[in-house]
């Protein structure tokens, strides 16, 4: 009997999904042999000008290469405003787990305020023994903690509720998600200093921007992992992301991670602000709306390939993407290349952290035929990312928020990738 080739033994699911081992020594060589034979020879090597002439001088703050100008946020503003609306992270042009600070998504309700850190104050009051005011210098002297955490707008991926699949890419559909290393002072430390009145059950957080964006959250979150952030990816938080100080409520919907934080008020109940009543509530077919839906559920998206990243002919590819859960760590990600008929286990890139994005990777031998690529996450609580049909069955398609349904990308014979419902 003829021995099975290496590639046949490495199949983990239909339509060419392979175990990631094929990328390691031996596997790739065995698979690549045939492909290499077809490659035209490379052109003779040029000695370019930059190999001969001294390069640019130093500068104070580095910028990406001028050849990377297309790696940029896209945005939409409310009518009559310049900075009210949202901008989106270009996930199809990034890799790894950290979003560069200048590409972190933005959601602002009255532009980006130009805050002088010397006059900025953080007030803690309400149901406390001693109302307290902190300067930025004060906060800088407290013991700090760092954690890598995603922030995702509750409205992210809402485009997938549309009746027909929009001709849109991963940035347009899923770009309201980013992940940074955040460093700051635990809110619990400051609350203990102010002295918590036992009647305090909720916390109101308010921004110093012109909209005074404000949200309520349960005091348990404040005493658990809420962080008053001064730094993002090692440098001071960027203006668009809350300079000089923002609240981080790991795993909770983006709107609650109040930027430009000026005030924390302890209260007996939720304040019922505009954003926690008229917005960020999920309208069900019954006419009732779900309120206080705080953590974002388990979710994943394939970023490579995705619309705009045309697959260039049959061969071996890496499918990769991001998975995350507001309830903890990602336990596994499965990938399908046949529209959900069969699923194979993707490799999870270390580190796999609670309430952070996890990069997943899967090997794929594309035969040049039609394929529908999907990813499905399971988090450490056992929650499995739902299909589009399952989520709409549960909540209808008018809820706008917390859309975590499985995304499908169709790859056509010519290699073009597009958003489809599968």
């Amino acid at each position, binding site marked *: 009997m003829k021995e099975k080739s290496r590639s046949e033994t490495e199949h983990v699911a239909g339509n060419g999904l392979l175990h990631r081992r094929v990328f390691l020594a031996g596997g790739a060589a065995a698979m690549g042999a045939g492909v290499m034979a077809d490659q035209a020879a490379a052109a003779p090597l040029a000695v370019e000008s930059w190999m001969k002439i001294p390069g640019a001088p130093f500068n104070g703050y580095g910028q990406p290469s001028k050849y990377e100008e297309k790696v940029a946020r896209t945005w939409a503003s409310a009518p*009559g405003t310049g900075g009210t609306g949202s901008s989106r992270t270009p996930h199809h042009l990034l890799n790894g787990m950290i979003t560069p600070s200048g590409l972190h998504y933005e959601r602002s309700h009255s532009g980006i305020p130009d805050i002088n850190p010397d006059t900025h104050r953080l007030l803690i009051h309400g149901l406390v023994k001693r109302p307290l005011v902190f300067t930025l210098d004060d906060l800088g*002297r407290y013991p700090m903690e760092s954690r890598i955490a995603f922030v995702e707008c509750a409205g992210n991926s809402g485009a997938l509720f549309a009746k027909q699949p929009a001709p849109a890419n991963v940035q347009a559909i899923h770009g309201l998600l980013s992940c940074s290393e955040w460093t700051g002072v635990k809110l619990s430390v400051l609350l203990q200093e*102010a002295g918590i009145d036992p009647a305090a059950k909720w916390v109101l957080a308010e921004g110093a921007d012109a*909209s*005074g964006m404000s949200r309520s959250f349960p005091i348990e979150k404040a005493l658990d992992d809420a962080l008053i952030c001064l730094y993002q990816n090692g440098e001071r938080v960027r203006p668009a992301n809350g300079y000089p100080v923002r609240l981080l409520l790991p795993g909770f919907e983006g709107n609650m991670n109040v930027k430009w934080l000026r005030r924390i008020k302890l209260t007996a*109940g939720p*304040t019922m*602000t505009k954003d926690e009543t008229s917005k960020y509530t999920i309208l069900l077919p019954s006419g009732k709306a779900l*309120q206080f839906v705080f953590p974002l559920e388990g979710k994943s998206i394939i970023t490579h390939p995705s619309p705009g990243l045309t697959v260039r002919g049959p061969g071996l590819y890496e499918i990769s993407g991001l998975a995350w859960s507001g309830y903890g760590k990602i336990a596994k990600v499965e990938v399908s290349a046949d529209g959900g008929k069969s699923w194979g286990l993707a490799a999870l890139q270390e580190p796999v952290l609670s309430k952070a994005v996890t990069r997943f990777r899967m090997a794929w031998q594309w035969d040049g035929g039609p394929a529908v690529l999907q990813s499905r996450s399971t988090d450490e609580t056992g929650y499995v990312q739902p299909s589009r049909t399952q989520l709409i069955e549960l909540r209808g398609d008018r809820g706008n928020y917390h859309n975590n349904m499985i995304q499908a990308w169709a790859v056509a014979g010519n290699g073009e990738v597009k958003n489809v419902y599968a």
Partner: protein
Amino acid sequence: MSMRKFLVAAASAALLALASPAFAQQSPNLGKPISPEDLASWDISIGPDGAGLPPGSGTVKQGEAVFSAKCQACHGEKGAGTPNDRLVGGQGSLPGDKPPVKTIGSYWPYATTLFDYIRRAMPFNESKSLTNDEAYGVVAYLLNLNGIIPEDETMNAQSLPKVTMPNREGFVVFTRGK
């Protein structure tokens, strides 16, 4: 006290401090105390029970004048919307599968939120510029446009929390897995 006795006493005090819960909560203690009067300018949030509502009042008619001058350009005549959010109508549009019309009248559960939001965030290019009387007036006008209060009603710290919004019972607190 001899040096030896002093050291024993100091060590005991340190052990006590270690054992007491207060020790675990030590911090640089840099927060500066502030009086209610001095923080009042920032304490602008209004609870659903009306906690925090300031003195002052406004009528539907007074609010109409303020709305025409400062709100209409973005929210349309009588709050009909365009270019920005529609503020009126949509009652009965929430159930079913057609696109809902979410407005103050059809969706907002608390009238107090209106005062809170208008005073803190509107008018868009000049937030926190309305007097309390003007804010009460605009709230009264918008509630009247939505058929929630009669034309002769006055809104103030006593009357506003008593307004029952049409969608007051329209919200269910989320529980995971349900």
